[in-house]
């Protein structure tokens, strides 16, 4: 069995490569960087270090090789006889690799499934349409599968030096479950460790978004308000922990109403999320988790989208309202999105900015709660100050 993984980044190597290797596949990476390609071909292996409550486990991924993405012909040859193709390039970059996949598919005689490890509901259909642009109109693309994949592992670090001969180390948490959208598949998939093929893929995507992603973002934005640098510190702050738990439960109630209690899960899901965010071995900075606040404040995104879902279920999204307001205070000089957000707040004020970015206003319960928290936070705010008491909104 041979799998081509397009994208040799943290998820490509730290999750997809390891799962496929452990499932007995020959793994070939397609890497953007020539230096990385040379490193992998020279060293032929790397480690995945999984860190969590159960301790540290290091796994060797060996026998791997790589092809540079700029070598279109070579990449196409690799795809031509692969049993499975995987992408892990980030949703926004799927268009950039579509031609590579198209060239490979053109040379195939047998159908193949392309799995997009992009944590997105629409990654499969989107990738199919991007690839179609590079193929003749009458090309039988429908023979091939394009399916989105939801991943649970966070891979936060790549240690080591690609100029050296020592293998790199990818550091992540031990969660291995991957959920594949059955609707996009054509034919059976080869066996892959930890893989679940789901008919209700969109519901799983929503679950991750409304529970883990919302909780993660809330931790980052409240942690920023309190002046912390890492999410694992922020989640140990009792006030933030309580607020994050409220957000998870609001999302869970919304999910239960929309998709049923079984998918929404129970207390153990809440505990698992808090535990994952608290994993200090991942060294996950607030600047990474909170980046691009403008995107994260969009109507359908993790905070506002979850608030709307909860509201639709009759839940008062008080915790999400606070999280949305906290996001409005996010600053980071190195993050253009944070700069844009603060620029808009300065010009238009918080309430109007929130309305423009997320569509939230006082006509909805979510909007009223977010604005209420926004006013309370604004009162007493001083440039450079941090919150010392979230419940009473006391600034240092």
């Amino acid at each position, binding site marked *: 069995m041979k799998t081509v993984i397009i994208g040799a980044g943290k998820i490509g190597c730290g999750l997809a490569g390891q799962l496929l290797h452990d499932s007995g596949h020959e793994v070939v990476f397609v890497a953007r960087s020539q230096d990385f390609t040379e490193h992998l071909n020279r060293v032929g292996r790397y480690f995945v270090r999984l*860190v969590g409550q159960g301790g540290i486990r290091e796994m060797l991924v060996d026998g791997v090789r790589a092809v540079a993405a700029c070598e279109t012909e070579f990449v196409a040859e690799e795809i031509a006889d692969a049993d499975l193709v995987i992408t892990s390039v980030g949703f926004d970059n799927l268009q950039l690799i579509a031609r590579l996949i198209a060239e490979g598919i053109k040379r195939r005689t047998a159908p193949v499934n392309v799995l997009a490890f992009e944590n997105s509901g629409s990654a499969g259909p989107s990738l199919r349409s991007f690839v179609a642009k590079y193929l003749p109109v009458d090309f039988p693309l429908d023979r091939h599968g394009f399916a989105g994949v939801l991943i649970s592992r966070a891979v936060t670090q790549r*240690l080591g*030096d690609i*100029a*050296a001969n020592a293998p790199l180390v990818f550091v992540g948490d031990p969660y291995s479950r991957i959920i594949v959208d059955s609707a996009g598949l054509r034919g059976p998939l080869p066996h892959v460790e930890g893989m679940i093929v789901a008919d209700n893929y969109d519901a799983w995507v929503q679950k991750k978004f409304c529970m883990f992603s919302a909780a993660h973002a809330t931790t980052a934005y409240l942690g920023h308000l*309190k*002046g*912390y*640098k*890492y999410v*694992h*510190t922020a989640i*140990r*702050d009792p006030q933030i922990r309580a607020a994050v738990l409220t957000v998870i439960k609001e999302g869970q109630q919304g999910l239960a109403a929309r998709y049923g209690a079984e998918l929404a899960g129970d207390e153990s899901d809440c505990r698992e999320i808090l535990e994952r965010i608290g994993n*200090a*071995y991942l*060294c996950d900075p607030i600047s990474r988790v909170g980046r691009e606040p403008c995107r994260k404040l969009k109507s359908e995104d993790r905070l506002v989208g979850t608030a709307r879902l909860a509201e639709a279920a009759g839940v008062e999204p008080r915790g999400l309202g606070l999280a949305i307001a906290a996001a409005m205070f996010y600053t980071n000089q190195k993050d253009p999105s944070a700069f844009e957000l603060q620029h808009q707040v300065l010009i238009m004020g918080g309430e109007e900015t929130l309305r423009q970015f997320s569509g939230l206003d006082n006509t909805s319960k979510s909007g009223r709660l977010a604005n209420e928290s926004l006013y309370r936070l604004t009162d*007493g705010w*001083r440039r*450079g*100050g*941090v919150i*010392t*008491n979230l419940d009473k909104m*006391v*600034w*240092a």
Partner: protein
Amino acid sequence: MKIGMIVPKQPKDKNSLVMPEVIRLLKEYGVDLDVICPEDHLNHICQIRPEHDLYVLKDTTDMGLGLAGILHAAGAAIINPYSASMILRDKIATTGVLKAAQLLVPETYVTSTLLQLAPLLADGPLVVKPYRGRDGQEVHIVHNEAELAQIHACRTPVFAQRYRKPDGPDNKLYVIDGQVFGVLRKWPAATYEEKLGSPLTVTPILRNYALRCSEAFGVKIMGVDVVMSKGEPYIVDVQSFPGFKGVPDAALRLADYIFHAAKEIMDKKNEGARLAQVAAVASNAVLCGAAMIDTFLGSGMPAGLC
């Protein structure tokens, strides 16, 4: 990530849970942390060498500073830096730094003889304290010559400042990596509860003062004592790595900063090692090139250089 926490044998305040909690948190974060108490050991100076990525200097006794000095000389990374910690143990040098940074301090005098202060009392009371004193020990407010005469065994040089009558309780400012926290505290504070004080909202002027102090000394963790007198903020004391009593979530904040500082040091080390390796590869390539040319010309560069 290896961190050495240099702590005093006798914590200044046994009731304070801040440092034990910082240690617990850092261990929970996976840090390989050693608690080092210099007073517990016979220290063989020639054998002391940095064995940690970062040292946290919480012990500013002579023993603690001595160990930090040796580690500093050997190139160890220390929070707060050794030289700044030394200055902050010396009120005379500290006042010099504050004045140079144009921060407001009461008129300050240094003398080797207490009695030389007597003429100054005509202009009002003085605060007399040991120049290497700490924790408010041996601090005297002196109004007249009789009170001056009652001060015994004051170590020299004697440090004296014009007493500025406070408008209210002391403003204790605490800095952790650019963040400023305030506590209102009665002076002198007798009980642990009094030391915890009450929350103080830090005004822009006080924040500016605290951050200028932090910058002037080049330290990220410090305490600044400010007395407001007739509306003017006078800095009357500055401490390296104070106890942070009364600062909400102080342990979490300190652990967060220390973890971050250690990670930055490790990242820099890794980057340094990478650059060194690149340089070595480049240098080797040059040598190989030279060897090839020499071989070609028959000059016989020693084998093995490549």
